[in-house]
């Protein structure tokens, strides 16, 4: 990858075009990361000049779909950070189980691996029936994948290990059927999921939840945008509800952080 194929000014031009022509605002994303994604895509798709790249992104709706999918990071896994899922299983979900109805928002769900992991834990705690998982992402094409609940079979060994480490009680293979190179997850899991596009940068709160899970999404945002999104979450979490972040993310510098209490050592906070 040629790391200096596109300079900072061109990144700005491109992102302004994207906002103007397509309504997606990436201007408050962490600059180094988004620049790297842009240069990566430019190289992958063999553009010969910035002008050509810019024109295509601006005018070609079909190509913009690809741009959106490649510029955002859609790397995820099931039961990522097993100790986190262990804490959800032991400390958080049993508390939510005392409510008559559980509403959970998985924000920036990508292809759905975390939503399915959560549904499995809820099922094992006999809570899935009274739960509803709202899984949202900026990107409609990853949501189409998430709805199908089919994940590459070659990842399942790792997912199964994660699941067991997180305190999983069953044989992981009971949750899916192998279909050529894909594992199709049980439909009882996504029967309790609602998939919808939602842009954390520009869209508002749409419900109140007892748990919001947003992991490895905020690392791509600059500090101001992170704080805006924390405010959005704050207005979407019930009192005594929970907010769960990725392993390197933190509420620490957000002014309202003192209204939240950390749950043990995990990146989970409870609204006071």
């Amino acid at each position, binding site marked *: 990858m040629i790391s200096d194929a596109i300079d900072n000014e061109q990144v700005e031009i491109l992102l302004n075009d994207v906002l103007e022509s397509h309504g997606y605002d990436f201007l408050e994303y962490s600059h*180094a*990361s988004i620049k*790297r994604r842009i240069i990566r895509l430019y190289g992958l798709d063999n553009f010969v000049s910035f002008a050509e790249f810019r024109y295509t992104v601006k005018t070609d709706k079909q190509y913009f779909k690809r741009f959106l999918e490649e510029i955002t990071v859609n790397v995820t896994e099931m039961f990522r950070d097993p100790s986190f899922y262990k804490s959800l299983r032991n400390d958080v979900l049993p508390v939510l189980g005392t409510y008559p109805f559980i509403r959970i928002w998985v924000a920036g769900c990508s292809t759905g691996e975390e939503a399915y992991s959560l549904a499995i834990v809820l099922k094992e705690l006999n809570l899935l029936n009274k739960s509803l998982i709202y899984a949202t992402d900026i990107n409609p094409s990853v949501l189409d994948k998430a709805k199908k609940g089919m994940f590459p079979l070659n990842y399942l060994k790792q997912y199964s290990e994660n699941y067991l480490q997180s305190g999983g009680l069953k044989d992981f293979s009971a949750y899916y059927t192998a279909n050529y190179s894909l594992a199709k997850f049980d439909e009882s899991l996504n029967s309790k999921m609602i998939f919808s596009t939602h842009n954390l940068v520009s869209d508002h709160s749409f419900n109140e939840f007892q748990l919001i899970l947003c992991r490895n999404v905020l690392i791509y945002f600059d500090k101001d945008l992170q704080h805006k999104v924390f405010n959005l979450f704050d207005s979407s979490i019930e009192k005594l509800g929970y907010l769960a972040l990725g392993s390197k993310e933190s509420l620490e510098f957000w002014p309202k952080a003192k209204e939240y209490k950390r749950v043990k050592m995990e990146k989970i906070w409870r609204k006071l």
Partner: protein
Amino acid sequence: MAETVDSTPCGALIIGGSAGSLDVLLEIFPALRKDIGFPIVLVVHRKASNESLLTDLLKSRTTLEVSEAEEKEFLSPGKVFIAPADYHMLIEEDQSISLDYSEKVNYSRPSIDVTFQSAAEVFREKLVCILLSGSNADGVEGLKSVNNFGGRVVIQNPNTAIMPYMPQQAVLNVEPHLILDSHDMADYINKLNG
């Protein structure tokens, strides 16, 4: 030969290593002077599960402040920042740290290339990058960027590397500023100006 160029101030030192690099790091760190005038960034390939092992190990070998990098944290002189396991680490224009969970690069996350490349443009001629022992070719593309932006490229002498492949690939593909034996590294770093 390098004396004249080395008087250029060092804004940041980034050390990249893979298999066989831990021994070198454990040799370098106890010998570093206390008043290092620039930040030191480490990008070391390792298993995702061994999260704090490297940090703890290095902490016990140096008086410098060592910590696993936090996202949005600013690089500051005299401190050692370790790229967290399973994240790429990038340096922003304002010298803050961004973490990134995107696809592995050279089968690696953190990838040395990713950090070298992002820092190359930020620090330009004030960047010093050292590539140590390893058994894949991560770091080579990053060192090319460092060269392009006028930074200094230092490669461990492959003959002194437990796994010579990585430094060998670098020597073959990048014009290094220096090739150093592992036991000369600490001395070189101590002489860099902050």
